[in-house]
């Protein structure tokens, strides 16, 4: 399953790129599992996802929880808590 990943703010800075297309291995079923798997991809990912509890996620531009399944997702974004307004 190929998914477009997008990163914002300090998650983007730590990963070192704004977006990428990745092949997600079978067995990675939820947003939380995806973060765990990403952490294992290298130092920059380990740094970005060191504290997954503070990272927010969106699937296809809608906020989701860590336990949300990623099946069928086209685009998944990871970012810190929002500070707009």
């Amino acid at each position, binding site marked *: 399953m190929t998914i477009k990943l*997008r990163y*914002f*703010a*300090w998650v983007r800075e730590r990963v070192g790129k704004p977006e990428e297309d990745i092949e997600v291995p079978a067995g990675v079923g939820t947003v939380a599992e995806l973060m765990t798997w990403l952490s294992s991809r290298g130092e920059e990912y380990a740094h970005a996802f060191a504290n997954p509890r503070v990272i927010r996620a*969106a699937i296809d*531009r*809608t*906020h989701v929880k860590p336990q949300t399944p990623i099946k069928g997702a086209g685009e998944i*974004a990871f*970012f*810190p*808590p*929002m*500070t*707009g*307004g």
Partner: protein
Amino acid sequence: MTALSTVRLQREPFDAAAEAAKLTCGRTDVGAVVTFAGICRGDEAGEPIAALTLEHYPGMAEAEIERHVAEALARWPLMGVTVIHRFGRMVPGEDIVLVVTASSHRAAAFAAAEFLMDYLKTRAPFWKQVEKAGAKIWVEAKATDDAAAGRWNKRQAAE
């Protein structure tokens, strides 16, 4: 007449008075307009800042704001809502965000403007970075903003 609603993300400054006038122009049923502007302060956490840069998630930011505007229109008897959020770099004194709400009476206009601002702070995908003492620092989310947004879950639209 149906409610007018406008959501805009832009790099350029906005004219708050002109935006408010658009909601009342040519009609006599509006009795209350609340205009809220969020402005870039010259300090963050007690220290002076040189500038603020707002990053956003294009596509999701508009969708998220529009969802909340639709919710405000469903909860309060509004005649118009305008939300404009800037992105990019701005210096202290510049406007960041504008919320305008129009209704026949003030209670709905005040409540809806506050509701929209509380949600913009915590749910709209924007991130602030400040330039402070030569360094760029991401602003941390505040628990008080989460609490302010949370109170709307318990309230009904009866106001």
